[in-house]
């Protein structure tokens, strides 16, 4: 068993930990907290409420795999939802223009931040911290007060649900209710699959890991390091734009306080999902499970009676802290073991 763990690549080891933790947690919730967690719809609601988080966490995973970080995503979501709300409600735009605006904002943030980080070698944290403040400030400049969108096309789009056959349940009055997911969830899952395949089998995807693992040797192998980094930020920005629209469809309004702290949740889910902050290690499927774990633990905390507003913040931070420490300890052990293995190998021929 130990042998097998030792042989596992870093990515798979961390992925396994995440999935095991999630399944254990959900089982515990089903057994001890009962009812609320047992219905299929409850499980699907985890997706409905967190579709946007899945998308930005995927974007963050990409950036973190290349060894960077992007904390502007929450601000971009707020900006996108506010701008789209203004466009639809006050400026008489339609759904297509609002979607284009969302993508445009995300792309613009990605391009600028990617250029500053990849081509001017500025610390990603500083750049994206400025990006976050810029987006938050710009949101209030666009419009100060919350807007509820009443555009009929948009309301129709936002209330359209996808029915999943066979998972419905009867409610207390005996009426059968279909199990549904929102359109945003479908988008999120498509993105997860696409990124999973890209990272695993495409050349660009492999380049991401190479650059994050060791920049110097990636350069030696003839990989365009700067372009790869740039690409990761552009993709993250674009995903943040899409996530902004998904979030906008979920809540149906624009407000300066939207998605406050979303970047934090996204980073936490990504780390819980087994993406290493040092780069080169990570998996999109893990990120998906990271998001689900995070939302499950939040639900567990609130449904076991700790429903004061501060408990969720503290739990998320505690969970992030635990996983960071686990990562750090595992990596230190692995490297120590690797070093001692090497020493043994070197020592063996000398002694014989």
């Amino acid at each position: 068993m130990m042998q097998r763990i030792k042989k596992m690549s870093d990515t798979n080891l961390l992925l396994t930990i995440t999935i095991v933790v999630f399944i254990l947690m959900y089982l515990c919730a089903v057994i001890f907290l009962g009812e609320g967690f047992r219905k299929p719809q409850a499980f699907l609601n985890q997706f409905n409420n967190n579709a946007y988080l899945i998308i930005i966490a995927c974007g963050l995973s990409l950036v973190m795999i290349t060894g960077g970080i992007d904390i502007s995503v929450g601000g971009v979501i707020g900006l996108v939802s506010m701008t789209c709300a203004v466009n639809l409600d006050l400026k008489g735009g339609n759904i297509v223009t609002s979607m284009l605006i969302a993508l445009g904002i995300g792309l613009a943030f990605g391009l600028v931040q990617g250029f500053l980080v990849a081509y001017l070698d500025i610390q990603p944290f500083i750049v994206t911290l400025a990006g976050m403040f810029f987006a938050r400030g710009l949101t209030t400049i666009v419009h100060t007060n919350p807007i509820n969108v009443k555009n009929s096309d948009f309301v129709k789009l936002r209330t359209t649900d996808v029915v999943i056959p066979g998972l419905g349940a009867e409610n207390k009055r005996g009426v059968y209710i279909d199990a549904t997911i929102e359109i945003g969830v479908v988008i999120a899952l498509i993105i997860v699959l696409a990124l999973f395949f890209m990272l695993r089998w495409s050349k660009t995807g492999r380049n991401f890991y190479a650059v994050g693992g060791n920049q110097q040797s990636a350069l030696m192998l003839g990989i365009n390091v700067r372009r790869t980094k740039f690409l990761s930020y552009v993709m993250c920005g674009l995903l943040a734009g899409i996530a902004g629209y998904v979030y906008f469809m979920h809540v149906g309004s624009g407000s300066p306080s939207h998605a406050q702290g979303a970047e934090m949740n996204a980073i936490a889910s990504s780390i819980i999902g087994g993406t290493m902050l040092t780069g080169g290690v990570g998996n999109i499927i893990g990120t998906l499970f990271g998001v689900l774990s995070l939302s499950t633990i939040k639900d567990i905390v609130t449904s076991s009676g700790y429903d004061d507003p501060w408990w969720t913040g503290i739990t998320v931070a505690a969970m992030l802290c635990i996983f960071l420490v686990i990562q750090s300890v595992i990596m230190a052990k692995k490297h120590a073991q690797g070093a001692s293995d090497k020493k043994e190998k070197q020592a063996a021929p000398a002694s014989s």
Partner: protein
Amino acid sequence: MKKILKKLAGNQIFIPCASLILLALFNLIADPSFFKITLGHNSNGDPVLNGYLITILDYGSELAILAIGMTLVTAATGGQDISVGAGIAIAGSVILRVLCGSDPRPTQLQTSLIVAFLVAIFVSMAFSAFNGILVAYFKIQPMVATLILFTAGRSIAAWINQNKLPIVSAECDKTFGYWGNYIPGIPIPTPVFIAAVSILIIMLLLKFTNLRLYTQSVGINPKSSRLNGLNPELIKVIAFVILGVCVAICGLIKVSRLQTINYSVVAKDIEMDAILAVALGGNALSGGKFNMWGSILGAYVIQFLTTTLYKLNIKSEALPAYKAIVVILLVVASAPVVREKVSKLFKKTAKTDSKSEGGAAA
């Protein structure tokens, strides 16, 4: 002449001084009344100085105190602490909790302010040490490690007081408000004095202990400082703990100013300003050598910028957007890649200049 200019431009203090002069000139042209200082009376009838410059000195002092700690952390670890705002909320909450007990509207304080302040310093140091341990012993990047407290900090602050908002009214204790406002009879705001004392202490520390040498050597190369007999981990934690003390002092000023606290708003976005002050002071954000005076001056320049923006009738929620632009311009200007390109450009023009001069002479 050229040499003097070059020497000036090479000095670390050059950037903050230049931006200060630029801002001052802008205000002078836009509205000279910006620099007017008048002697007025506050609601208690005590003489106080009024004017934008006094506001800058007043609020810049908080930032200067934070910048001291942030400079040390930046120098030692090559990263920044983004939990200072949350830390101020915690420290302020602790002070009010100890002073008021469980009663949000006390008629009499439970203990003296000194005790409450010492408890707050202790708590703040403990949280900072937690950050420091994550950074130094678990080798987590400083900004990510402090992200934990950045999220949880305000929640913890609310939890300490069970989400109540205690108010120390003037009837209950008069002296509590002195620390963030004015001491009767002295027309200069108290935070200025607190900042002066803090600066004096840190300068003495830097002068008479090995703090400066050790933090710089750890920041430049932790491995070789270890080989020279230093303990890099311990020094990183010490830098964080000093920042913790600075955060507690700021917390005291913040709660004393309003005599109450609002957990989600107090010291909002201050981490950005503190980092900006360090960067503006000409210190490398990647660690190593530092210039304390640069950071302190940087803090006042940032406050100058904030006050100028306020004066232009910009809403406080929109401020971050403008500051973010300034940050980006600053880091772009100080990026090595850009500097190299610019210096190359200068050389080229200098060459063509000398060529044309030579041609004219011939």
